[in-house]
């Protein structure tokens, strides 16, 4: 038990690492996901097909494999990345594949008549998308987006497998040192729970809010 208490500070640092990794992947993933969503709803077929393929591959590949491909795979081609960077790259692509699809759905859920009204007022397509359609799409996309962020937070735990010293990896090390796997992993689980649960509650709350305005 004392071993655990000695290591609490490093657990705290690891939790911070998890948070940092999460924010980095969410941020980059969101930007990429936006690009994917816009490509997915573009008028040029080639753009739509490329983004569709991207989403298909990302959603059909286990997150762990994505991590392995970026970290170990790219290494055999000669580029060696530090684990944290590999994790950020891989999980950002992962996030982009899911967020892109969620946001595409949201854009398409905005009624066609809104586009028409914008057009009849003289708006060009891109202007209409940014000023008039996007605000509505964002509102529609909110519950699923927050829901996905919960998944992303949990997926960051996989970075432990390629050696990133985040919360789960620390847990593995400390569980070994202290011979108290139940307590340590229980503690780790509780920490993840503390980080995820508020977002889950928020997502459910947002979903109810949507149904109320119908």
């Amino acid at each position, binding site marked *: 038990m004392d071993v655990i208490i000695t290591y609490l500070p490093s657990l705290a640092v690891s939790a911070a690492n998890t948070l940092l990794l999460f924010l980095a992947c969410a941020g980059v993933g969101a930007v990429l996901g936006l690009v994917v969503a816009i490509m997915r709803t573009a008028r040029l077929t080639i753009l739509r097909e490329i983004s569709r393929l991207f989403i298909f591959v990302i959603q059909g590949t286990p997150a762990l494999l994505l991590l392995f491909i970026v970290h170990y795979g790219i290494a055999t081609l000669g580029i060696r990345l530090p684990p944290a960077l590999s994790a950020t790259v891989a999980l950002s692509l992962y996030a982009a594949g899911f967020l892109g699809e969620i946001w595409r759905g949201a854009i398409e859920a905005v009624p066609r008549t809104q586009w028409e009204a914008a057009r009849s007022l003289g708006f060009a397509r891109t202007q209409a998308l940014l*000023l008039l359609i996007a605000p509505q799409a964002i*509102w529609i996309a909110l519950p699923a987006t927050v829901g996905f962020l919960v998944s992303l937070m949990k997926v960051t735990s996989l970075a432990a497998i390629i050696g990133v010293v985040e919360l789960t990896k620390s847990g593995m090390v400390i569980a070994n040192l202290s011979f108290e796997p139940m307590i340590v992993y229980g503690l780790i689980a509780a920490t993840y729970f503390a980080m995820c649960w508020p977002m889950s509650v928020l997502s459910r709350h947002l979903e109810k809010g949507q149904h109320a305005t119908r």
Partner: protein
Amino acid sequence: MPLVSVRHLSKSYGSSLVLDSLSLDIEKSSVVAVLGRSGSGKSTLLRCVGGLEVFQSGQVSCDTQELKAHQAADKSYFRNIGVVFQHFNLFPHLTALSNVTIALRKVQKLSKQVVDERGRRALETVGLWDKAHAYPARLSGGQQQRVAIARALALEPKILLLDEVTSALDPELVEEVIGVLRSLAERGHTMLLVTHDIRFAQTVADQIVFMHQGKIHEQGPAREIIRQPRTDELAQFLGIKQN
């Protein structure tokens, strides 16, 4: 010179012909109502004139602008027209005033002074200046439609196109919209309205055009054409038995 001139306009959706070589003139300051059954092509006609549909043959000219066959309307075409839709199509995330002024700000890029003035005038014309900062969700159907009319008016278009604007409203809300349109007509606005409501057409329009299966069957002054339909189809539409 008519303000709007439609010449031999034809449009098909896939294999079905919706508009059959239709020709129509709309004079400045006149109010033309297009009557007809669902499927007669009246909404399609309005949408073609409004640059919202691409047609296969014919020509539409509005003031100095022209629409040709197989061509999507250029952005500048929309300066001349103001469209009001059946289901209002207000932007739900913007206040009434923002709805009315957003095109002036972002598309026509007018100065703040001009925008504020036009926005206020448009909302006052429809009698909703006191609701300028309300969101569409807080307004009744009739109020939303009036804001939609203000939005079209603020563009200072050459012609107002109104597509079944009372059809989605509860009966008691229809009056307020008709009232606004009547006052617009009195002020000399040129309007093309599409409706299946005979009473609405009679109350607001100078000219009535009756469409059936993609063609114009009759047209003439509003009062006369209703009282004395010359074709069977119009008589049937009006519910008058012809022998």
